[in-house]
Structure formats: structure tokens, C-alpha cells
């Protein structure tokens, strides 16, 4: 009787507790791509579904936000103590969120990040806070036939155009009269495009948005001799009508290179496939010119991290680690056209494998990429930089504009106590 009672109690207890033991703990995750209508969101959804099905401990529930207001939503949620467990964060913004206490270190075994492209690892204060599942790279889009017809050398990664070569090429193409403009830097894309795409040109001149040796000032970096030389060259692009200015029609930005309005275009790997489709083997993706201090392009795209408010960092980490495989890097790359994180993953993709149409972008990313200033102050400095470059393009005095930008960035750094540097 006693045995039967114990067995019955055990059975009932087992039935009662079975669902609790089997239930997955919910992990909330916020993602910036609502409405993007692209394969990136679809692949993230697939990643979440496969992670949830792969184990019994955690269930990731994703909420998508419009990218335009995503960062504001994060800041508001941090204030209200309502952050999710997992967040995605734009690489250059991560130090700000880590410094502000919105994120916690990932606590990941760094051996797992070996061989990753440099722009895909988000570090702040010596710790890894975020990891990207893809990266992006920019290049000079060109056509082999156009360059050859005008006697312009085709640059290589080992021997990019020098400043004089690049400038002479623009003048030659402009004087041919075949194009509306010789070069399309992409002035119609405001926002983060400006610091992402144009600050590497400044860096190649020898300047920068801030002084990276201390991160406590922009003095000398953004208004020194090299920066002024960059500013004057930048302004001359528009004065000489080599490039369309800030009033560029967004539609021209989108199709102007393919339509033959522009001879060269500064654009990202995400825009490369239509160019290949239009021009086939004639399409070229060339390295950034070397303006004297080496060729440089921007790095770091969206990455995943764990919010400081997460009560289950181990679950959040398990999800991120689940995604850190060549199979997922290749899946994202094939879905979105973005650059896979590792060389071995690149070999598994349609576009970045050896001989693939976008192979060159992996090399560009590996050899030329430089992350934007790793500082919490970057989010303010980037906006100041954007405005300064637009003003200079519109004819503002170069030295005065850069001095004013330095004052604004320095005032912000000071107001925030040096941002922890």
C-alpha cells in the first residue's frame, strides 16, 4: 500500500512537474529590420526558429523595429528598465551603449572568434560586447572598358590609385563629356553613410574624426593639416563639378552608375550584384585610393549582443554562439549579399567563394577595413562630421568648418566626462 502510494505520488508529481521541467525560458530579442523586406530578416527568423528547436532550455522571441527609430527605442527602453535579453546594435554605436550601461560583456570564449573579419567583433574596454554575423565593404565601382578607353590604369589591392592618379582619372573622365559626373560619392545617402563611407578618405589623408590616441579630443585630427588638405580636395570635387552635390536625386544614386550618368561610384557590396548583372565581366570593384596614408574603408555592420538588463545572459550567449558557425555566416551571405565573417564561410557562399563575383569584397574587408572610432562619443561625433562634410561640399570655408566641428565634438566629450577614456 505504502509502495503504491509513493509510486502514485511520484507519478502525479512527475506529471505535474514535467511541463515545468520541459518549458523553455523565454528570451526577448530586438531586431532593427522591420519593413526591410529583405532576406536578412527572413534569415534571422530562420536562425531563431532553428535555435529554439535545437534545445529545450531557451526560446528566443523576436520583435522587429523600424531601423529609423530603433536606436531611440533602445534608449527609451533602457530608461524605462525594459530592455530585452538580446539586442542587435550597429557596430560603431556599440561602445556608446556599453558605456551607458545598456549592454553587458558577451562573456564569450574569444577562441571562437579566431579568423573573424576585424569589423565583426565589437570590443569596448578590452571586452567583447557584440559579434556580427556579416560585414560590409565599400569599393570604387567602375567599368573596365571605360577605364581602358580613357587610358586609366586599373588599380589593385597591392597598388591602389594614388591621390594624383585618382584625381587625374576623375578629370579625364569629366573632360570626356560622356558622363554627367565623373564620380558619385553618394551624397544623397545621408546619416551614417557619411562617416562610414567618407571618414576612411579623411583617414587616408592622415586625419580622423577624433584623435584615436586618447579619444579625448578631435583637435589636430579633424582640423589638422591633413584634414584641411582632405577638406579642400573634398570641396574641389563639387566645385569642379566632378561629383553631384548634396542635392543629388536619390534615384540617381540608385541607378546613375548603371545608367551611365556616373563613370565611377563609391558604393557598397550590397549594391554590387545589379552592377554585375548589368555589365557582366566589365564590372570592376576597385580598392579605395591611397591619399598618402594607406587605403582605408569602413568596417562593422550590425552585430548581436546581450543587454545589461538580461536576467539570462547565459541563454542570450547560447543563442549568439549558436549563430557563430560558417553555415550561418554563409546562409546570411547568400541571403543578403553581405560579406561572410570567415574565409572558410566565404568558400561556402555563391558570391564570395574563390572566383565568385564578389570575392574581391572579402579581400577589401580583410585588408583595408578600419573600424570607426571606438568611442561612446562616436554617435555625436558622427553627426557633427556629417554636417561638416555637407557644409564643405556646399562651399563653406574648410578650416572654419572643421574648427567648428572640433569645438562641437570636444564640448560633447567634455560634457560627458571623457566618455570613460
Amino acid at each position, binding site marked *: 500500500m505504502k509502495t503504491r502510494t509513493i509510486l502514485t505520488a511520484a507519478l502525479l508529481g512527475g506529471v505535474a512537474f514535467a511541463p515545468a521541467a520541459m518549458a523553455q525560458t523565454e528570451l526577448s530579442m530586438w531586431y532593427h529590420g522591420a*519593413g526591410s*523586406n529583405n532576406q536578412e530578416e527572413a534569415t534571422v527568423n530562420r536562425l531563431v526558429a532553428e535555435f529554439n528547436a535545437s534545445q529545450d532550455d531557451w526560446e528566443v522571441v523576436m520583435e*522587429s523595429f*523600424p*531601423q529609423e527609430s530603433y536606436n531611440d527605442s533602445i534608449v527609451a527602453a533602457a*530608461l524605462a528598465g525594459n530592455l530585452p535579453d538580446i539586442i542587435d546594435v550597429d557596430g560603431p554605436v556599440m561602445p556608446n551603449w556599453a558605456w551607458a550601461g545598456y549592454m553587458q560583456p558577451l562573456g564569450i570564449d574569444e577562441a571562437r572568434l579566431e579568423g573573424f573579419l576585424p569589423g565583426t567583433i565589437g570590443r569596448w574596454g578590452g571586452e567583447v560586447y557584440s559579434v556580427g554575423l556579416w560585414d560590409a565593404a565599400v569599393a570604387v565601382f567602375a567599368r573596365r572598358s571605360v577605364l581602358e578607353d580613357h587610358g586609366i590604369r586599373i588599380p589593385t589591392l597591392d597598388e591602389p590609385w594614388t591621390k594624383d592618379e585618382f584625381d587625374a582619372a576623375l578629370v579625364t573622365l569629366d573632360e570626356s563629356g560622356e558622363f554627367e559626373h565623373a564620380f558619385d560619392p553618394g551624397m544623397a545617402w545621408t546619416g551614417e553613410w557619411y562617416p562610414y563611407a567618407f571618414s576612411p578618405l579623411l583617414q587616408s589623408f592622415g586625419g580622423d574624426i577624433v584623435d584615436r590616441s586618447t579619444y579625448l579630443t578631435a583637435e589636430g585630427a579633424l582640423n589638422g593639416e591633413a584634414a584641411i588638405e582632405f577638406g579642400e580636395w573634398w570641396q574641389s570635387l563639387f566645385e569642379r563639378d566632378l561629383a553631384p552635390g548634396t542635392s543629388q536625386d536619390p*534615384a540617381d544614386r540608385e541607378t546613375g552608375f548603371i545608367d551611365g550618368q556616373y563613370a565611377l561610384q563609391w558604393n557598397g557590396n550590397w549594391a554590387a550584384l545589379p552592377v554585375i548583372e548589368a555589365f557582366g565581366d566589365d564590372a570592376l570593384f576597385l580598392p579605395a585610393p591611397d591619399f598618402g596614408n594607406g587605403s582605408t574603408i569602413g568596417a562593422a555592420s550590425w552585430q548581436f549582443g546581450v543587454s545589461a538588463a538580461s536576467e539570462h545572459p547565459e541563454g542570450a550567449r547560447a543563442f549568439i554562439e549558436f549563430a557563430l558557425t560558417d553555415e550561418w555566416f554563409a546562409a546570411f551571405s547568400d541571403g543578403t549579399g553581405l560579406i561572410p565573417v570567415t574565409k572558410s564561410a566565404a568558400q561556402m557562399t555563391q558570391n564570395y567563394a574563390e572566383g565568385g563575383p564578389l570575392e574581391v569584397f572579402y579581400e577589401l574587408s580583410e585588408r583595408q577595413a578600419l573600424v570607426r572610432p571606438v568611442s561612446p562619443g562616436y554617435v555625436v561625433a558622427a553627426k557633427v562630421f556629417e554636417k561638416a562634410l555637407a557644409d564643405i561640399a556646399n562651399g563653406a570655408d574648410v578650416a572654419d568648418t572643421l574648427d567648428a566641428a572640433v569645438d562641437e565634438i570636444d564640448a560633447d566629450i567634455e560634457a560627458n566626462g571623457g566618455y570613460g577614456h
Partner: protein
Amino acid sequence: MAAVNPENRGLRLAVRYLVLILIAVIFLFPLVFMVVSSLKPDQQLLSDTSSLRAFLPVGDISLNNYADAFARAPVGLFIFNSVVVTGLTVLLALAICSLAAFSFVFLRWSGQGLVLAVILATLIIPFETIAIPLLLIVSRLPWIGIEGFEIGWLNTYRVQIIPWIADGLTIFLFVQYFKDLPRELVEAARVEGASWFQVYYRVIIPLSGPVLATAAILKFLIMYNQYLWPLIVVQQETYRPVMVGLGYYFQLNPAWGEIMAYLTVITLPVLAFYLVLQRAFIASIASTGVKG
């Protein structure tokens, strides 16, 4: 003064109509541009902006942008959310603000003037300055609902409605309107034994059609156009209103045709609401113009 002859009158009428037509065209142009652009592909939409073609449904016209706009985002859900939030807020605001105004105009209680002055003073405070403190408050407020007791109002309809029910402008509109109503009606009702609530409900409200319409339209516009507040208190698509939903269309290359289609669709409830109440709204505006 010279007598107005028929010829002069005709000329004046012609000039008046010309000016009115011109003003109407200026006000209609943005709407026409929005609707016409919603029918064009992006490339054509942008190239047409440099000519009068921008206002004409010419070229490659189709409803594709509408189909794409609905495929990109849950437009129906966003409109439903906005209509629920706006509708309930308007109804509650009319009730609460008119009651408040009634007590300021027809009742006598100590501190009345000071309280009204404080309420009116809130008109000069921009919402942006109180958004963060308000966010901190609502994120910690308790609530007892169907699911039981909970802390925090974020990601609900109530967080989008309750903080917006009472506001200085609506109370001010009612106070000004009630002041001009004949007090004899109130006194007569009181003599007949009506309670204060009966006076409010049976005497004052039936006479307040124009101000109710004006307050409703103004409140409707404020609520339907809400962006900052729902952006910071709603983190779930389930409760997202139309203006935050607009962000779905602003990608690296904004889908301008879809944006115009989306704007056209979300403008329809506003137009419908205005058309229903326009007679009373115009009467109210006209009456404020002939006072004194």
C-alpha cells in the same frame, strides 16, 4: 460712398472666387501630389517632381505601390491601433475635459482660479520636456486588469490613451464656450430641482455641439499624429500606431511610392472624421469669430 452697381459686384465676385480657388489649390496641391505619386513607380515619381507632371496621374500608373505597402507592413493593424487609441482618447477627453470646464464655469469652490491658471499654464510646456519623466512614471505604474495585478504600463493601449485624456487646450476650449452660454438656463434648471450633473448632461451638453466637434477634431489630429510617445512606450508591433509604422518604409533607399500609398491610406480616417464633423466645426469657428 459710390453705389455698388451690378458690374462691380460681378467683378468683385470673380476676384473673390479667383482668390478662393487659388487658396484651395495651394491647400490641395500636397494632397493631390500624395495621391498621384502613390500611383507611380519610384523612378518616375522622383523625376516628375521637377515639373507639373508631379500633380498629374500620367505615365506608368498602377496600384502596385498599395500592394507593396500592404506587403511590407501590417497597415491594417497600425490603422486599427491608431483608430482605437484616438477614438477612445477623444471620447474620454470630451467627457473629462467638459466636466472639468463645467466645474470651473458653473460651480464655486476654493482655489478654482488658481487650479485653472495652473491647467492653462501647461499649454506653454512642450511635450518633449516631460516625455522622459512621464516614461519613467508609466513604466512603474500599477494596473489591475483582466490578467490581474501588474506593474508597468508599457506596450498597452492604456499607456497611449490615459496620459492624453485631459489637456489644457481642450479644457480651455470648453471653458470659453461655456462662459458664453446663458446662465439663466442653468439657474432655471437648478430652480426646477435638477442636480449639477443633470444640468451638465441635460442642459449644457445639448447646447455644446460646436465646441464638442472642435475639441474632437483637434484631439483627433493630435492623437492620430502621435509619434514620439508611442515610439518610446510601445515596443511591440501589436500596439504600434500609424506614424511609428511609417518608419517601416524608410530604408537605405526609401520606397517613396509606397510611402505615398501608405500616407494616402492612413489619411482616409482623418478625412472621414473631418467630413462627419465639418459642419459643427465650421459653426464653432464661425461663432468664435462673431463673439462680443
